[in-house]
């Protein structure tokens, strides 16, 4: 990891009146099932947008495919509902081309950690000023309840009796372990790593505010239960197993952050890791453009080949 001259996050905010959370609501009503955790995430996001006073006209929300990825349509901002797993490339392209825009990526655990998981380390190392919000329901919601890389399902070798209607691709138990996305993000040296819970909407809104205001790439993994297909990692499950990160935790201590992320006794909520001096591709590209400023002339370029 290298370090560079660091600038604060530059946000495109409203120049007119401050907007209330409801001002960020689009006309399209969410299509989620009753009780879906994503409702909580959406309202926390509305709140965070309002707190940061982001200009909807200069904000782009990018998603993949999944129940959670339908979110951009429900926000009255520019949206990009792309294909499964490609949130980060699209978001990076937007931010690199238009550093003046606020860019927020959203999606599911399948979208972000399975098919799209290969983009995460590279987004982290590029460190563009993007907030990436994962609605982690530990399952594939839209395709009706298969295991995702974060599903916690008993192993096949345990020989547990499985409910035949649940975990349809692992009817005898999982044959695979699950991943720890938070620990992974810290290993990627992702410059902001936080975890929230959709049933703690105020805390989540605060985390999102911090993530949005963070200069660089911010990953916020949110437990957002799917009551329709995941009867194991439910809101109750998480209510009993999550805890707030103690105030004494120093998020700039990478080793401590990693240890916290690997806690096997519960799931810490809050900001785990922060690397505030990590270089950002947006600034690096600006440096290159600046260095060559005024040198771009088509006639000259052609002449060089004459």
């Amino acid at each position, binding site marked *: 990891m290298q370090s560079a001259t660091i600038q604060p996050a530059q946000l495109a905010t409203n120049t007119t009146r401050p907007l209330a959370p409801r001002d960020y609501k689009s006309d399209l009503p969410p299509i989620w099932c009753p009780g879906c955790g994503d409702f909580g995430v959406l309202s926390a996001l509305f709140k965070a947008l309002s707190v940061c006073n982001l200009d909807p006209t*200069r904000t782009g929300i990018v998603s993949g495919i999944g129940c959670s990825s339908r979110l951009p349509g429900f926000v009255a901002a520019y949206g990009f509902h*792309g294909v499964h797993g490609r949130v*980060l490339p699209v978001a990076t392209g937007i931010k*690199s081309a238009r550093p003046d825009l606020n860019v927020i990526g959203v999606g599911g655990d399948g979208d972000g950690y399975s098919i799209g998981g290969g983009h995460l380390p590279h987004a982290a190392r590029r460190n563009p000023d993007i907030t990436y919000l994962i609605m982690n329901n530990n399952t594939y919601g839209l395709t009706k309840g298969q295991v995702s890389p974060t599903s916690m399902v008993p192993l096949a070798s345990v020989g547990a009796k499985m409910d035949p209607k649940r975990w349809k691709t692992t009817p005898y138990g999982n044959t695979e372990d699950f991943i720890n996305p938070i620990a992974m993000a810290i290993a990627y040296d992702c410059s902001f790593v936080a975890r929230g819970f959709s049933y703690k909407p105020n805390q989540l809104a605060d985390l999102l505010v911090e993530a949005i205001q963070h200069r660089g790439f911010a990953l916020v993994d949110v437990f957002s239960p799917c009551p329709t297909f995941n009867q194991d990692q439910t809101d109750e499950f998480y209510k009993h197993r999550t805890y707030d990160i103690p105030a004494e935790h120093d998020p700039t201590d990478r080793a401590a952050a990693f240890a916290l992320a690997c806690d096997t006794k519960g799931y810490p909520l809050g900001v785990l890791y922060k690397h505030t001096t990590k270089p950002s591709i947006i600034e690096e590209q600006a440096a*290159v453009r600046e260095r060559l400023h005024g040198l*771009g002339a088509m006639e000259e370029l052609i002449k060089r080949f004459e």
Partner: protein
Amino acid sequence: MPARLSISGETMVSTTSTDVVLRLVGESGEGTVTLGDVMVEMFTQMGLDIYTFQTFPAEIKGGTVMYQLRARSGVTLSHGDGVDVLVALNDEGFELFGDGLRPGGTLLYNSDEFTPPPDSDRIDYALPITTLAKERKEAIRHQLEGEILKRLPAPVNTVGLGALLRLVSAPLEPAEAYLKRVFGRKGDIVVGMNIEALRTGARYVDEQIGDRPTPRVYPVKQTGPRMMVTGNQMLSIGAIAAGMGFYAGYPITPASEIMEFLAKELPAFGGNVIQAEDEIAALGMCLGASYAGVKSMTATSGPGLSLMVELMNLAGQAEIPVVITDVQRGGASTGLPTKTSQGDLNLAIYGMHNESPRAVLACSCVEDTFWTTVEAFNLAEEFQMPVILLSDQSLATRRSTVPPPDLTKLHLTNRRIPDPEELQEGYLRYRDTEDGVSPMAIPGMAGGVYTSTGIEHDEQGDPGYTPELASKMKHKRFRKMEALVARHGRRLVREWGDTGEVDVGIIAFGSSEGVIREATEMAQRESIRVAHLHLRLLHPFPKEPVMEFAARCRRILVPELNWSGQLANWLRVNTDLVVERYHRDDGIPFLPSEILTHIRRLADTDCSSASAVRGQGA
């Protein structure tokens, strides 16, 4: 002594013009490419037109490279047929690439390495190039320090250069000036050694010439500025000229040079380049940038294009302009990564599940690459769709002298954006307009917020799945294809050869334009009536100009470098024409004589009953 011009194995005599084909073969990394590049420079200085063709081994070091170079006074359309002078630096090169030498041609071989089997129909020059170079180095041994001496390579290439220049009766002075420039920094001793080496090579050949005929290269007076540039470079320059502000790519032979060029040049024009983690990410980034209002391109080759299939389809369905350059290479899968092919036309046209609109263009020569790249951006913007821009290995790595693009002729198109009133009241991103093109809001425009999506959607962009909506929106999107071909179809083809009724019409695309033009000219000299229609736009299919062309052809030949005759098949899908296919796909470009053979064959065929044009089916 008159120059011996060689076209398709025949020999013509001229006192003023030059047309020489040189071929250098040797071990990769041995300096063959450098020697070729220097010869290009020498000939360019003499005002000649240059056209090169190289094949590389797929390994980094080792393997044989072949560098062919044609120098001509006047427009050069191909890398030439029979080789006039073959420079073989090793045995393997001679084995692999020796058969290109025309009857009566000249062989200059490294006699330190091998002795070719005798052939009475060939003029041989033995050059102990390694020995001569070592001797030159020995000669200055006492003047240099040990360490410098150790690192100083023997001037092998320079000996070769001298020999070669003498062989084609070219002056040595420009080469001496060149050596001074290149080795100047290393001091007079090294410069001197190289100049001596140059002269040694020349002298060595001179002694062997006697009264044997040699090809001769005449200097030409240049009429205007000319660029010496590769296809990849020209494509990159075209992209910058087209207003591209964002490029993302992933390295792949033979497209990498585009990213490397742009990484160096684009930031000066205010743009950014990202080397992505893979091709999917590269195209994803381009779509993001374009959605945000910045013209974007990625470039790749077959394997990368394969990976982009899903996102290309999103671009078509969500109506996002983007240019996707495919520098085609040989073989399926990893195949023949350093060889050429026109094998990706199918994938460019059909590579998507279900169907969304897209355009496919092909660059035809180095000069054209600039303009076709600009077209690609313009069409992408005008019709808000992905444009696949085909190039190929032979064109991409070809160095060619071309007139610089006339920038006053440059016209750029920008995408249609909503007008202020529209943004004030109920802006519809996917408005169902007459030509299918809907004004596209750019983030930052107040009143323009919408969600771009690849799911079926209504005019506003909200998801919808009824058969009526699906049908309406699909019609809207595909109307753009009709508009594109109606507005630009005629412009995006080029005609060569005879006007009026012809015996043989050739329909082709891509980098073989020059070869076919040359073959056409050869056929015309044999009094065959022949014409050539070259398609820059492949999809949507420019039916009108094709049918008009076909109407004046007794027979139609479709030559292409791929396995199944992809263009011929595409013609069948779009027309009722009966065509003669000629295709092969073994990694190397066509030769003019090869095409000529097929023109002759078709011209000879008795086909009084045959007419290329048939009534269209119901």
